């Protein structure tokens, strides 16, 4: 399938909704557009592409201003941005007036937050997640909450209790998951940036499948406070953006130590935007490649595009080095023991007692629990709760959970050994491009395999980025770059240089270009 995309050669050509946030920032600062016009345009886009089901709730202007989601523009009666000096990302007002979206597992005070589950169908948090506070501070306009696999469990967004999200490149295909709604919001020109959460690839995989940039920062870089937990030791919030520069400004808005999250790192976060923008061409960068990741089981179209990216990096002066990550072959079983064990505990609070759904009829406490959780959770969530409960059971703990933790340590050590030799590791994001709806729902293991390249970064707690690197049969292919702890700058600098030399990030699905 060809001709399903539009490629732009510069920002001027792009319609307003496809322009990157840094271009929108410039336009707002130079008053080429007003915040009200921008919001109206994006609101129109969301309405127009409602059928993609990217959003679970849309926050209309009236509500946003009432509860303080719109900030900078309020000072200006004419609806023009008050700022007359250009805003840089080092300023925490960089996102002023720019519409962004949030995955629906990020708590928003006074705004429904469902985590894609029936059990939280009518749940309205009483507090804001740390990232929401930060985005509000940076002036961002939060336009809606995006669809997701229930409790972030899934790789296709088909596990949402509120219907699947469609891939704008081909609406018969999944957008990936679990942050499918956020990926589609950015890919479809309905938000300039969206936050997702990545536990085993839930940002990078949908980013790859929808042709946008997605990043999982180092574990501890972004506060998890207010992120409805799936697997606490793996979950990390991260952005979806159009390009590497926007990724830098998005990280600038959300990264940093948070005393309210005990797992948040206190290693100082240096704002990235200016550093990335001014980063020089790199030579002597060492990029590691695991040969096995290009072999059997990986779609040839994907291999072709990723190999082309390797060649591009070589052309730009990077040295390509073959590395081994021997224990990553255990990543999937290790992940599905640790993640499900933590999930079985994290999801215990959804018991019908305090908030959310409660079964209407029951004879006693035990029946209330059982009926509530039976009707409130979907099949995949139940499957993982059962799996995790089993892994933690007395008599099985050592064989499963403890062994998995040991293997996790081995995987971490693999990466540390690799990063002693290379600066970055390059791989495909997924073994194949977006699959069809229903294609893998009957086979959970096949679904789990779509995360094979992304899971290790969560297990190793390292940062990893997915950027578009071409198309295979008209569907986007993602390139994954990962780096050592807290090397977000290195990742983004490489991605920025790559994007300077390529056009993949300038391509959009034709189906929603207008």
């Amino acid at each position, binding site marked *: 399938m060809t001709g399903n995309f539009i490629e732009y050669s510069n920002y001027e050509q792009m319609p307003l909704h496809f322009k990157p946030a840094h271009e929108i920032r410039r336009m707002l600062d130079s008053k080429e557009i007003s915040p009200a016009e921008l919001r109206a345009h994006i609101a129109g886009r969301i309405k127009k592409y409602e059928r993609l089901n990217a959003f679970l709730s849309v926050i209309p202007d009236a509500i946003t201003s009432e509860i303080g989601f719109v900030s900078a523009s309020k000072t200006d009666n004419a609806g023009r941005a008050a700022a007359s000096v250009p805003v840089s990302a080092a300023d925490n007002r960089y996102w002023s007036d720019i519409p962004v979206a949030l995955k629906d597992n990020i708590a928003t005070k006074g705004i429904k*937050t469902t985590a894609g589950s029936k059990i939280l169908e009518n749940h309205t948090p009483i507090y804001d997640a740390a990232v929401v506070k930060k985005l509000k501070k940076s002036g961002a306009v939060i336009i809606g909450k995006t669809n997701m696999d229930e409790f972030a469990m899934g790789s296709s967004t088909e596990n949402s209790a509120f219907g699947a999200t469609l891939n704008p490149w081909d609406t018969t295909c999944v957008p990936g998951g679990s942050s499918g709604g956020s990926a589609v919001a950015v890919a479809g020109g309905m938000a300039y940036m969206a936050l997702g959460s990545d536990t085993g690839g839930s940002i990078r995989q949908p980013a790859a499948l929808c042709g946008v940039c997605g990043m999982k920062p180092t574990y501890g870089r972004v506060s998890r406070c207010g992120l409805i937990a799936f697997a606490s030791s793996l979950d990390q919030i991260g952005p979806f953006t159009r390009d590497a520069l926007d990724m830098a400004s998005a990280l600038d808005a959300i990264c940093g130590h948070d005393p309210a999250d005990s797992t948040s790192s206190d290693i100082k976060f240096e704002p990235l935007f200016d550093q990335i923008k001014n980063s020089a061409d790199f030579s002597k960068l060492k990029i590691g490649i695991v040969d096995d990741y290009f072999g059997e089981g990986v779609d040839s179209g994907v291999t072709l595009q990723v190999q082309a990216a390797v060649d591009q990096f070589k052309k730009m002066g990077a040295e390509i080095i073959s590395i081994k990550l021997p224990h990553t072959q255990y990543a999937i079983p290790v992940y599905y023991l640790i993640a499900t064990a933590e999930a079985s505990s994290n999801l*215990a609070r959804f018991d019908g007692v305090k908030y959310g759904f409660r079964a209407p009829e029951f004879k006693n406490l035990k029946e209330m*629990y059982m009926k509530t959780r039976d009707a409130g959770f979907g099949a995949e969530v139940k499957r993982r709760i059962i799996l995790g409960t089993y892994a933690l*059971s007395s008599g099985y703990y050592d064989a499963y959970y403890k062994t998995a933790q040991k293997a996790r340590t081995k995987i971490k050590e693999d990466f540390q050994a690799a990063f002693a030799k290379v600066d970055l590791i390059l791989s495909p994001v997924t073994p194949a491009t977006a699959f069809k709806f229903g294609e893998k729902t009957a086979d959970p293991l096949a679904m789990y395999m779509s995360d094979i390249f992304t899971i290790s970064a969560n297990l190793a707690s390292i940062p990893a980025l997915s950027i578009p690197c071409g198309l295979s049969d008209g569907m986007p292919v993602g390139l994954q770059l990962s780096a050592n702890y807290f090397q977000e700058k290195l990742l983004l600098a490489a991605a920025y240089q790559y994007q300077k030399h390529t056009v993949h990030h300038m391509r959009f699905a034709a189906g929603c270009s207008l």
Partner: protein
Amino acid sequence: MNYEAVIGLEVHVQLSTDTKIFCSCSARYSGNEPNSNVCEICSGQPGVLPVLNKEVLKRAVKTGLALNCTIAKRTKFDRKNYFYPDLPKGYQVSQFDMPICENGSIIVNDSRAEVKKDKKIGITRIHMEEDAGKNTHDTAGIHSFVDYNRAGVPLLEIVSEPDMHSAVEAKEYLEKLKVILKYINVSDCNMEDGSLRCDANVSIRPAGQLKLGTKVEIKNMNSFRGVQKAIEFEIERQTKLSEAGSKIIQETRLYDEAKGITLTMRKKEEAFDYRYFPEPDLPPYDITIEEVNAIKATLPELADAKFERYTRDMLLGDYDAALIANNPPIAAFFDECVKTCNNYKALTNWLLGDIAKKMNELSTADIFTTKIRPQHLVQILNLIDNQTISGKIAKTIIDEVFSTGDCVDAIIERLGLIQISDNSLILTVINEVITENPKSINDFLEGKQAAAGFLVGQIMKKTKGKANPKIVNEMLYAELAKLKKA
């Protein structure tokens, strides 16, 4: 057959910190409207994260040091998973395999020794955890309610070794534990209001056998006496079963205070699998030797050391020394007094006699809630010593101090209680009494010494007890001697 009981106690104490263990809500929850002392964290809202209140860690270390424990170099939290409405997250954040303190001990009296003897009861471990909320049910039995005000209040669980062999010993262990915890000021330690809770593991075995019998856990004991009664009942129940040849089954039993019996709550097969695993939201904590030493420096002198000092340096009797040392406020009061008064015996007598009696009347256990202060007692003792007042007047002054808190001088002046040591005044009274009691004078002159006592009484009566008894005695005998000669 003779049976030996083996008892271990699991004690939960609420720490009296300002705030809860993982959020900034107040840890003082009682008396509040249900669910008014909660936030998104302690009510377990989706997405919330715990942040450890460092004061809890400090108090746990302090407790461990006071109980002679080894303090962990690294400690971590774990999740204990079970469903119950009072547990907001569906798991309790507790500690499983890396508790903050291990291998401690407490000294109590050996209940089996022929003569009084010290006995060391081992403390297996101390760990930190969060308290749950409280479920209540309406009288009709239709609705249940949950109050999360208590959820997240910090707890220490103190687990003893199965080193106790009688209900009395268990009670003594508990009492001693409470005294120590009161000294270090980490908890209110009140069983009645739930700030100290105790579960007991009880088993019996034929005397002399090393292998432990099947243990039964007893819950729901709400007083020190209840603990003793419940264990007594349980030992008797198990002994009867064994004597009848029946098997004791491993189970958890509830103590029914009104009936004084224990009843099955759940059998072993119904026990929960708590699926403990490391709490991923809280990284492990490393505790440095410097931190431990800093906390050690804040430890006050504890009961055993005080007892030693009172008996060895101040020569108090064991009984009196123990009474003072095991009552932290009384000991503090006593220690303040001895800074300026070395009449330890008199201090002890007054403190454990008249003052204890006054406190009983006021039904208070803490002397510092009354109006008497160490300066009062020291001054009263000094006045007795230098014969400014008599013991009888001292009692009057103490009564007055308890009701007004005024200083001793003011009380003496107001009530005119100063002792009469003026010889001429006393002589006048002596002569009056001699004139008024010719029969007693005759008796005395005939050799009845007891008559002199009567005369002293009459003199004290006339002076309303204010005459200096020593002077009265001396002068009376001198006057009587004159009469003898005449």
